[in-house]
């Protein structure tokens, strides 16, 4: 019994020593990290400006309301006009321009995502901008018309995304281009956000 105990402690110690062996650090991986962070911080003059001008909470609230109002207005204009979705589970809405005018000063732009899915119980949005589902954006269908929408603030640039219907069905946006560099080997949709 004692020998068995000693044996197990020795074995466990050996496993820990082997686990402690540090893998070689790939210089290309380190370079990739540095490439990703390059330029992410605001320039010093912008940081100083931000420090000097701290917007008040009421101002932020008003700005947020403005964004929501603009998004809602846009949704009404784009979504009410197309005909009702067909009987299919994932019927296609009319093509529309996804880019809106910028109304916030941090460089992000409100972008509306729309999916016509008359039989869906829920629709969420996953993309590179939210960690592919780390914090999925939930689309709403306030009129119960089967047209789901959400408006997000995105940084200018190219973003890839997909809809998740009923938390399980990966669905690309039928209105826009499909990405060639598919995430997880599945197709995703592309939106180009411009200022």
């Amino acid at each position, binding site marked *: 019994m004692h020998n068995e105990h000693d044996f197990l402690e020795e074995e466990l110690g050996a496993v820990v020593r082997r686990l402690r062996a540090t893998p070689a650090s790939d210089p290309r991986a380190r370079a*990739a990290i540095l490439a990703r962070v390059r330029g992410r911080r605001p320039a010093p003059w912008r940081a100083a400006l931000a420090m000097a001008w701290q917007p008040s909470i009421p101002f932020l609230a008003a700005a947020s309301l403005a964004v929501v109002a603009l998004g809602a207005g846009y949704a009404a204009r784009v979504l009410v006009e197309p005909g009702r979705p067909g009987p299919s589970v994932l019927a296609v809405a009319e093509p529309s321009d996804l880019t809106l005018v910028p109304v916030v000063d941090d460089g992000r732009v409100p972008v509306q995502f729309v999916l016509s899915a008359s039989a869906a119980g829920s629709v969420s949005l996953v993309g590179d901008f939210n960690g592919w589902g780390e914090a999925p954006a939930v689309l709403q269908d306030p009129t119960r018309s089967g047209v789901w929408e959400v408006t997000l603030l995105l940084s200018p640039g190219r973003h890839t995304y997909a809809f998740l219907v009923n938390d399980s069905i990966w669905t690309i946006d039928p209105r826009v281009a499909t990405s060639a560099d598919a995430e*997880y080997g599945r197709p995703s949709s592309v939106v180009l956000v411009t200022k």
Partner: protein
Amino acid sequence: MEHLNDPDTIRRAKAGDERAFGSLVDQYHARCVRFAQQMLLSAEDAEEAVQDAFVRVYDALPRFDVTLRFEPWLFRILANRCRTMRVRRRRHDAMVVFSDSTPDIAVSAQGEDAARQELWLLLDALPVEQREAFLLHHVEGMGYEDMATVTGAGVSALKMRVKRACDVLRARMLEANRA
């Protein structure tokens, strides 16, 4: 546990000095990869988790309190990325019907790194929380207070997780020895 002896590097990185941040990456990258690989049991997922973690560290550094210890803070972000990666992988595995992306642990039993696979199979026997506590304590050499910072769990719970992990590993090794 290895400590960063140059708090000035952290201050400079916090102030936006990319060279200083590069020094932090150089210093911690290998250990982060080790931890992520042993948590995720996939070199590919680990690389992505580590990269994401360092980007988040860079973004969050301006808010980092330099009077606190850097390493537990870094590992907390990394551990969160590993958890997120596991969720994504589970979701991915659940959704992809015809998948050709089998986890590394399952495909390379005959590969060159058989020793690593053997270790990973052993780690795979541990529930994730126990594996995390075991690795932080026995491999990364962290004390329980720092582990509490990393995991958000209490010290007594962490001690129990480490003990249970050791028990599971001993049972596995005993089973293998008797076979």
